[in-house]
Structures are given as C-alpha cells and as structure tokens.
C-alpha cells in the first residue's frame, strides 16, 4: 500500500512552503500575486504566450538540480511539490544592489513600459546560469516565450550578452546554494503519494508509474496533467474544473530516455527540453524543428507524451514521430499495449485510449541507414507559434527509385495524418522532379484542409505541396533553407 502525504511542500525563494489545502485550479501566478501578494510576476495573457509571468522552477532530475523558466500563469500549484520556485523578488533586495541580470537591463535601457521586464529578467537569468557567455541565438531562444511590445528587443539582447560583465555565475546565490537546495529538495521528495482536497479540488500526485496506474484506474474521469500547457488554458480561459487533478510530470519512472533494440524509448513525462539532446543526437534533421516547438518556457513544461495524448491535430511532435514509425505504450492498470502512433489518432477529439488508460511512453525507431528524413513547421511567426502546417517526410531511394515513403502532416486534417495517396504516387517511381510534380495533385485526395485564423485552405494545400518540392530539392542538394543564425 502506497503511503500518502496530505501536504504539498516546496521552497519559494528563501522560504519553505507547506500547504494543507490548495485548489486544483490555483495557478502559481495567482498564488504568488493574490495569496502571497508577491506582485513582481505579471499577468499579460494567462495562456503561456507572453512570458510576463516567467519564474524559474528548480527540480531534481536524476538527482541533479535543474532550474528552468516556466509560465507561472498556466502552472498549477499542485504541480510544485519538491521544487524550488524562484521569482523576480528573489534576485535583489529592495535596499541592496541589483542582480547582474537586472543591472545589465538597466544599463542597456532594456525596459520601457516595464511590464514584460520581470519575465524577461527571469528568462535571461535562467539562460545565464546555463550559458554565461551567450550568443545572440542563445538569447533569442531563451526569449522565444517573452513578448515585449516597446523596445524592439535590441537593447534586451545587448543586455543579455553583457550579464557576465556585471557578475560571475559562480557567485550567483542559486549557484552557490546548489548543494543545500539539492539536499532540501531531496528531503522533500519522500516517495509518498500526495493527496489533497476533495471533489473538484482534489489533487493527486502519484508516487510512481505503478501508483499512477492504480489511481487512474480508480479515477478514470480525473484529469491527467503534465506540463499544463494546454490544461492550464482550460482553467484560465474556460474556467473549467479539472479535479481530481492527477499530476504526472514528476513521476520519476516516466522520465526515462533510453535506447533499447536500436529504438529510443521516451517516458511520457519527458519534456521537450529534456528530450532535446537525445532527439537531436539521433535525428539531427529535427534540430531546427525542435527549437520551434512552443517557446522556451513551453518546452520546459510541456511533455511529448501529453502532446500525443492530447490528440490535437496541430501538435508538433506527431508528424515527425509518425514519419519515423513511432509507436506508443498505453497502460491501464498492469495491462500494456503498443499502438502505432498513426493509428492512435482516430478522429478529431477521439483517440484510441480507453478510460483509465494512459500513455506511458513513446518508442521511436532509429532512422534506417540511407533513408532521407526531414520535418518542417510552417507558422505565421517563426517562433512560439502554432503550426499552420507541419510536415515530415521519410523516403528511401534505391537505384534511383522510391522504395518507401512515409509522409505525415499536421494542420491538414482533423488529426495528424499520413499522406497515403501521395506516398503511393511516389513509391516505385524514380526520385525525380517529374515524379514529385506528378504527385502534387494527389494531395487533394489526402487532404481537404480548413480555413481558419492561422491559414486559408488554399495556402495550407499549396504549402503542403511545396514542402514535398522542398524536401525533394533538399535531398538533391538543390535548395537552401532560410536560417536565423546571427553573425
């Protein structure tokens, strides 16, 4: 029998917090601003898209303490057990000197109206601890989730590059106190299940994957919450109740990234950020694509498992994973089954998942040698935008002919979906421009996309076709890609 704790415990800046009760829907931002009257973190959008509420959350991952920027507005307090939450208030005392990040921002005129500024300071801070001498690109990535409407960012980027001129990372309090915080967080993580509240305010944090299986089987109407980058909006925008909330993203045995029989096995609670190194190492073709999923804060919170389980037709990971032939492990109680990812998506809002069943992991096969693979994301804005169209191609060419082709798109149908007719039009044909051109009309067999605020049906179809052209040109070395590298 799993032991149960009925308290949530975490560290907020320099204080221990113990909560006996908190609503399942209470966000960290409201907790800070309303319950604690810590108003440094701002609400700009309440949907994780502007970054004005950015805070750092330190968590133990594999025993190592890692601070990451997240959006407090869509982070539930119930997800914070055994973490160190660091807000802008922690960086400098009212009477003391400013933190190096803050002084750099002042000296480079990085704030105008100042409302986005605390969030930008926190994003830069999180970056600087990892990368004391950042490039412009490093800063742009760190700020993918931070909107500033006043400055045009130029002074903020200059400030970001100069932080180390104002102080050394080793002298930073969070770095200096790393060992003691690690020990305190390890002590908070006592291996017990956490249960708070009742009814719609019930919060359950399973102790392990097995515990989760028991809990979810017993509470199949509960809401599984991982990074809350979508569920957060159910609460902040639609004011839905989500209890009982079953928070799964800190379940340690859902965090594995391992290689088995040549395939990459990724636990369902692995975030985009956690997976990035392993994904890019094995599939270098996804390097740029991966850095364009959400913004930094979203990648730090959102998980691959939930991106799949959510079933959205515009999730970014399904198209490349389908193209790579990935499958998922579904678990209910002790029963597990493996489903090909492309078969998981049945219709809009409907997946092959039974009540009480959850995604435990993803299995991504290695890219067979000699196969061509690429993934593309098309969006109105380059970074931190939802795809208008997302595409992935895996083609094997033998003796100049297409031996196999797997092509998957997001944003083109009610689910992530393979382009079966287009694939058929390519297979067995010579891998030439003529073959590609001849296959283009077949797209209308596979897809009848919608017009919405992100793109028209006309554009979606055209750009989907052109991405096949682009893929072909790239495999023949004939097309350059736009890049955003800054000298």
């Amino acid at each position, binding site marked *: 029998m799993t032991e149960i704790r009925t308290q949530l415990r975490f560290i907020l800046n320099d204080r221990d917090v113990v909560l006996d009760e908190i609503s399942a829907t209470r966000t960290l931002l409201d907790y800070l601003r309303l319950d604690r009257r810590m108003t440094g973190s701002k609400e700009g959008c309440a949907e994780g898209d502007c970054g004005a509420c950015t805070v750092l959350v330190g968590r133990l991952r594999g025993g190592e303490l890692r601070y990451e920027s997240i959006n407090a507005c869509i982070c539930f307090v119930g997800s914070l057990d055994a973490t160190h939450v660091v807000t802008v208030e922690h960086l400098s005392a009212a009477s003391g000197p400013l933190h190096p990040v803050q002084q750099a921002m002042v000296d480079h005129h990085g704030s105008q109206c100042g409302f986005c500024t605390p969030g930008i300071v926190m994003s830069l801070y999180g970056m600087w601890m990892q990368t004391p001498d950042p490039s412009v690109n490093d800063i742009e990535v760190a700020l993918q989730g931070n909107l500033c409407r006043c400055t045009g960012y130029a002074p903020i980027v200059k400030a970001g590059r100069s932080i180390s001129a104002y102080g050394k990372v080793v002298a930073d309090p969070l770095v200096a106190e790393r060992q003691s915080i690690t020990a305190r967080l390890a002590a908070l993580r006592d291996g017990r299940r956490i249960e708070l509240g009742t009814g719609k305010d019930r919060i359950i944090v399973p102790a392990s994957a097995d515990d989760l299986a028991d809990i979810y089987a017993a509470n199949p109407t509960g809401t599984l919450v991982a990074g809350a980058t979508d569920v957060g909006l159910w609460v902040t925008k639609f*004011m839905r109740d989500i209890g009982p909330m079953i928070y799964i993203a800190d379940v340690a045995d859902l965090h594995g990234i391992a290689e088995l029989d040549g395939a990459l096995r990724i636990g369902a609670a692995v975030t985009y950020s956690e997976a990035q190194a392993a994904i890019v190492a094995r599939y270098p073709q996804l390097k740029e694509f991966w850095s364009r999923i959400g913004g930094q804060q979203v990648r730090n919170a959102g998980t691959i498992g939930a991106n799949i389980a959510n079933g959205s037709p515009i999730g970014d990971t399904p198209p490349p994973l389908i193209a790579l032939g990935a499958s998922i492990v579904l678990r209910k109680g002790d029963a597990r089954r493996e489903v090909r990812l492309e078969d998981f998506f049945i219709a809009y809002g409907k997946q092959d998942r039974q009540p009480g069943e959850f995604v435990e992991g993803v299995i991504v096969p290695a890219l067979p040698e000699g196969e061509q693979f690429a993934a593309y994301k098309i969006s*109105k804005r380059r970074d931190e935008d939802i795809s208008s169209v997302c595409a992935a191609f895996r083609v094997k060419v033998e003796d100049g002919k297409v031996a196999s082709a797997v092509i998957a798109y997001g944003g083109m149908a009610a689910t992530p979906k393979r382009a079966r007719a287009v694939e058929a039009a390519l297979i067995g044909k010579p891998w030439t421009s003529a073959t590609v051109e001849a296959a283009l009309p077949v797209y209308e067999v596979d897809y009848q996309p919608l017009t919405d605020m992100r793109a028209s049906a006309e554009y979606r179809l055209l750009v989907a076709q052109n991405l096949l052209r682009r893929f072909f040109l790239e495999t023949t070395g004939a097309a350059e890609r736009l890049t955003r590298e800054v000298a």
Partner: protein
Amino acid sequence: MNKQSPITTSPLHVSTPHDSAAKQVAGRADYIDDLVEPEGTLHAYLGLSTKPHADIAAMNLDAVRAAPGVVGVLTAEDVPAENDISSVHKHDEPVFATTRVVTWGQPLFAVIGTTREAARRAAKLARIEYRDLPFFTDVDGAMAAGGKLVTEPLKLERGDVEAGLAASPRRVTGRVRIGGQEHFYLESQAALAVPGEDDEVTLHCSTQHPTEIQVMVAQVLGIPHAAVTVNMRRMGGGFGGKETQGNLFAVVAALAAKKFNRAVKIRPDRDDDFQITGKRHDFVVDYDVGYTDDGRIQAVTATFAARSGYSADLSGPVTDRALFHADNAYWYPAVRVNSLPLFTNTVSNTAFRGFGGPQGIIAAERWIEDIAYALGKDPLEIRKANFYGTETNNITPYHQVVEDNVIQRVIEDLEQSSDYQARRQAILAFNRTSSVLKKGIAMVPVKFGISFTATWHNQAGALVHVYRDGSIHLSHGGTEMGQGLHIKVMQVVADAFGVPVERVQITASNTGKVPNTSATAASSGTDLNGMAALDAANQIKARMAAHAAFIYEVEPSEVQWEFGGIRAGQQFVPFDELATSCWMNRVSLSAAGFYKTPKIHWDRATGRGHPFYYFAYGAAASEVTVDTLTGEYVVDRADVLEDVGRSLNPAIDIGQVEGGFIQGMGWLTTEELWWDSKGQLRTHAPSTYKIPLASDVPRVFNVRLAEWSINKEPAIGRSKAVGEPPLVLGYSVVEALSMAVASVADYRVAPRLDMPATPERVLLAVERMRKGLQ
C-alpha cells in the same frame, strides 16, 4: 559662502535611463493590479455580447446574481446620468447596451463579486436571447451595405486634379489593403475606483488620458468634474490603446464603487480585452495617379476607406490624419484625397501610434512603387524625383508650406551608411542565380506632421514645487507609458534649476494637480509637457534669483544660474541653501506652468491651414530573404536614420525608434486580425495574434539619430517628437518582400502585396507572379 561651483554638466541631451528602470527590472514598479487594495475591495467583470449585430430579445441575469461570491450586477438601469462614453460626444457608445448590440464583445452588464474569479465565472451564466440582424465586419461589406459613416468624412484638395490626370503621359490605378493592429499593451486595461465623501470618487487607471477618464466618470455619474480625481503613475504600455479605450473600465469601476460604497477593481482577461477594445484602423485605399515618363507625379486622387467599427470614437481625426499623410514626403502638383470612416459591426477602432498617418504614408509609397515597376526603376529613384523642394514645390495638400524639409539629406545620409546601392546590385545578382530563396531591399522615407490636428489639444500644464531642502517635486499633464516622457521632463527641470536629475522627484499624473490635460498622444508628450514644466521652473527660478539679488545685495543682472546653485556677484550659493533661504524669507517655491503650441491653426471645413508645428523625418532601408516555396522570410538587415532634432535623451530616443520600427514591422507582416463568418474576432490572444519576438528582429539592426539635425522651431531643447514617425518605417520590410516576390517574374510587375504580408500572402503573391498575373 564662497564655494566653487562643482564642475559638472547639464543633464539635458544626455542618455539617461528610464525613471523607473531599476524598479521595473526588480518587479517593484507598481501597475494598477499591483496596488495594495483597500480593505473590502470588490471586483467587476463584464458580460459581453456574443453576436455582431442583434436585437436583445431578453436578458436573464438571475443565475448571474445567484452565483457564489456575487454582490450585485450593473446594467444600463444602474447608470445615474448618461449611459454614454463617446469621447467625441456623438452619443454612440453606451456603457451597457440596452436593446441592441452592434458588435461582438459589446458590454451588456457587469458583475460585481468578492473576487475577480467569482465575478468572471458568474458573468458566463447570463442567458441572453438575441434576434439576429444582418452584419458586416469589413470595408467591402460596409461599402456593399451602403457605406454608412460613423463621422463626417474629410476632403483635402489642391490644384486641378482632373486636368492633371488628363495631361499625364502615364497613369496608374490600384488598390491597397492595409490591415488593422491590436495594441497588445502588455498590461491589459485596468482601473481601481475608490469611493469618497459626497460625490467624490478617486480612480487609479491605466490611461493615457486621465482628464478624459475624469470627464467620462463625471458624465456617467452626473457629478461635477471636480468630484472626480484620476491618478496614473505608469502604464504597462499604451500605444494609443489607452487614449479612449480605458473609459469603459474606469466608468464601470466608478459606477460600482459609488453604488456599493466599496473600492472596485476591474481588469479584463486578455481575450476579453481584445474583443472589447478598439484597434488600429484597417484601410482600403483606391488610387489613380498621373505621372511623367521619368516618374514625376502630376496628379493624385485617392479614397481612404477605413474600418471604423461601431462608433465614431477617434475615427474622424484618425482618418483625417491618413489624408494629412497621403503626401508623405512628396510634392503633388494636383491632389484630391477623401476619407470614408465606415461603420462596421466590429469593435470601435481607435488611436494607435501614428493615428492613421502610417496608412496615408503607405498608400503614397504604394503608388510610388507602382510607378517604379511600371518604369522598370528602383522605387528609390522615383522617390527622389518626387520629394518636396525647399523653396519651391513645397505646399502640402492642406496648403501648409513645408518649411523644414530635410528629407533629401536624410536619404543621402542613409543611402551611404547602409551601402544601399552596392547591396541592391548584389541582391539583383543573387536573385539571378538563386532559385528558391529570393532577396529584396527597399529604402523608405517618412515625413510626419507634429501637433494634434485639433488645435485646442495642443496645450499642457505642469506643477513644480521646490521644497526647503532643495528637492524638487514634479508633476505634469503627460502620462508615462514606457516612452520615457518622465525622464525627459525631469531632465528639462533639472537642467533649468542646474541640479542633477536625481534631485527631481517625478510623481503620478493626477487631475488634482494638473487639470484639463490633453491625452499623451500624437508624439507630443515631451514637446508640450516639457515646455509647461520649463515654464513652471522658470517662474520659481525668477523668484529665487530676485531673492538672491535682494539678500546678497547685488543687481539682478549680477545673478547667474550655474550648475549646482546660483552666483550672486562674488557669492556662489548652493541650490539647497538658496531654497532654504527663500522659505525663511517667505518666497513662494511652487508654480503651475502652462504651454500652448504657437503658429498652428486648421480650418477643417476648407481643408486649409497650418496644422503642424513642424515635421519629423526619417528613413529606413531593409533587406529580406524569402523562401518562395513557403512564403516564409527573414529580415536580414535594417538600417534606420531618424531625425529627432537635438535629442533630449539619445538612449530613450533610440529605444523609441527601435521599438517603433519593430512594432510597425509586426503590424505589416505577422499581426493579423481575423474575423470568422459569425462576426467574431478569432485572433484575440497571443496564441493567435502574433507580435514580433526577439527572433524576428533584423539580424543586423543599425539605428541612428541624425546628429546633424536641429529643430528649426524653438521646441523644447530644439528636439523633435519621436514616438510615432519611426513606426512607419517598418513598411520598408514590406517593400523589400515585394521586391523579392517581384524577382520571380523578373521585376516586370508590381506584386501589390497587401498587408499584413504574412507568409501566406507572400506565397500567394509569388504564385500570382508565377502565373503571370498581377
């Protein structure tokens, strides 16, 4: 007493950080929602229409009233005086709709609850029955429905246009669509009302126009202006979106505060803010231009149709300003331009940085571009052929003579520093060999008229106190929204008194200290309030100097201000000692300053006058690379040169230019307002409405101030306004995209790229080029 004056210099014309920078980076700068709430503060939330045009058949609010945490509900019946907040007094903007809604998101009622969440949840429980009416949300729909206007249109005319067009060897006609823009101030609208005795009420508002909040609250409550006090320390961004759009929130908070005798706060969720408040006007411009074989414009006629939304708001002056800028920097021998401020079933469009001026300028740049493609020339050549002269060819369509033209020098300077010609040649060469990626470059000028065109707005007040310890309290009629107005006015006052900036304490804008103010808008904040503060400082200085002459027994002519104090004959008296001495000797150390802009006048009926005190100039050259398979693009480089006269604070001004350029670029590229077929705006949050990120900034971004420039008019410190003009320069990105698109068809036709030039519009334009269509 014979102290040497410290060797130091004036704080004017020196880069100085924003007055609140240290607090902002630390999260200690308070915005409305951060203020400590009075005990028992209640929270208001608005109930909104979910139809773009309908009669209200029934409104059942029982469930709202019965919801947990609800204290009460306000509807039009709870308005003691006028149920109207039209800022231009057209009586077309009810606080709460009564029998009919004319836009999606129109307020119907307000819920007052013990918490914001309780009020917000309860607002969803209303049961409204509608009877649908026909609606239209854009210019095309408005024209098809008969072209109803929300306010009087304007015509500007000079010369014989028909004769000019008829005599022109060449003609171009066309249409350009320019999208609207959401302000996306990071701090949403917010107001906190605290009831006082009798009629009194005090408001803390995020507003660019405290006086108008005061007037509207008084109007709705039926109380004198004097009973309403509005306090405003800082906004988390305004950009024009808090000139009139804060009225609704302030009025609702005040109504509730008086009704329940409790402090009441209101702050809409971002999605609701998007759906309630007005935006930049979309324009559809139809033009007919005659020109010569060498590209000199002979005659222009154009109609500027604007999506104004459901009420007049500021659509009159906004569409006026579009016409005032339809010449940009160009001489038109004959010209006639008309405005059509069209009614649409959308939010009521409003002020936004540039105030219609950018749309006027973009239209002008579009026909310049058309002429260039028709003649096979670089648009920059056509620009140069049409610039205003200095002695001749210098009369605007509104009959004001351009007396300070420096556009030729601006362009010449930027052309050199950006290496424009060589880069253009390199790009032409690149495009000849690159099949998928194509590049473009464009240089665009701006001339922007500075002053409110409603002449009476060009006045300002300030209040300055010198305390007996020599510290200085400053309040003026302007508001701080991030633009650095406060630090600039602090610099002006510090310079006047010869003290360091730190000696000057800026305080919240407050209608009790400085009355009857104008909106902080039209780029005029520093020009107006800086001069008013200087007037106040000079009054106090005169008294202090007279006192020094008296007490040190020297002639008034022997008294001189130096940095740090005053020299009276041989004596140097530090400023703080002089202040103490003045107080001991009963000399008043407080003054109210005032300023009104000279020289300006405007007769709207005849379309003639001198509406602008001076012009601010600038130019930008942008280079882009386009993926012609997807329409995606990257801005490789932008060089910007801005004429701000003699800058009061170069760092602040550079910040305005950089920020303005990026905001303009965002407007014209990725920021798209999209209404669905039911009449609802569907891009109503940052998840769907995409403003620029750090990674959208030009990879090389060179921004300079024209250091050689000095304002010919005696404006404050010989500086020029900076807030709005640079925004227009973002258009250079669109024209560069246009060139990249045109390269697909060997530059034979103008691509006529509409705005915002999203990747979709760029790709569809590429397709048109490929198919040989225009």
